[in-house]
């Protein structure tokens, strides 16, 4: 019990800090490292709420694939890998706006009750059964979105478009 609470707080602080750090550091490569840490901390949450498949997915897709993709992007668009990002002013308005949203949403969140304090886990087989039967159409839709996205990405980066 205590352990779980402790884990939650540690993970929560990690997630928030890494996310902020990812957006604030001036070196893009460092950003990638921070964001990878952020993805991993989120995966920790998924394990914490008994959703191990999603944790794995998070590690594989986000912490793995997406991070690598982002790193590629940085490498391709920068002459020097460890180039500094130009400083951009924080400005009071964006911060205030973000804070406003956080406060309003957090306040609203406190009014939402869960059906129970008990967290339910699902076996991977139950999840896959549901995904391929009940929500088969969703996966199909996802595939339909991914295919043109792939084609579009290839089209965008192909040579000779100058």
């Amino acid at each position: 019990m205590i352990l779980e609470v402790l884990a939650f707080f540690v993970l929560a602080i990690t997630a928030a800090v890494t996310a902020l750090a990812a957006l604030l550091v001036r070196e893009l490569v460092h950003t990638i490292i921070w964001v990878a840490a952020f993805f991993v901390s989120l995966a920790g949450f998924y394990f914490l709420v008994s959703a191990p498949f999603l944790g794995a997915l998070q590690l594989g897709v986000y912490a793995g694939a997406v991070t690598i993709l982002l790193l590629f992007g940085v490498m391709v668009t920068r002459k020097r890998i460890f180039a500094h990002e130009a400083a951009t002013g924080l400005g009071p308005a964006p911060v205030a706006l973000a804070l406003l949203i956080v406060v309003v949403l957090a306040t609203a969140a406190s009014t939402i009750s869960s059906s129970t304090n008990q967290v339910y886990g699902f076996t991977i087989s139950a999840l896959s059964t549901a995904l391929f039967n009940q929500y088969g159409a969703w996966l199909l839709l996802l595939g339909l979105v991914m295919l043109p996205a792939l084609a579009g990405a290839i089209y965008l980066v192909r040579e000779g478009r100058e």
Partner: protein
Amino acid sequence: MTGLPLAGFLALSAVLLGIGIFGILTRRNFILLLIAIEVAMNSAILNFVVFGAYWGGVPGYGIEGQSVAVVLIGLAATEVAVGLAIVLALNRLRGSINVAEATVLKL
């Protein structure tokens, strides 16, 4: 596992969304922008998963949250792929990935 309140997760999700929004509003680098969007997206996915976990005892719920989260992770990955393709194209065409300079849709 018991004891953790749902509200805690939701508050965390709200904080992450705020961080994402903050990034979207302030960063000019396209890659950082993508990262900020991912942060916001992840806060949403976290919400789905958490709701799914806490409402899992109610028939018809729970599994739905996780299923949606799977689909969303897929979508997010796709989005990053397309986004990076745009970054590459932009870099090649304009020599810069500063979004504030990209004001026209067609070059």
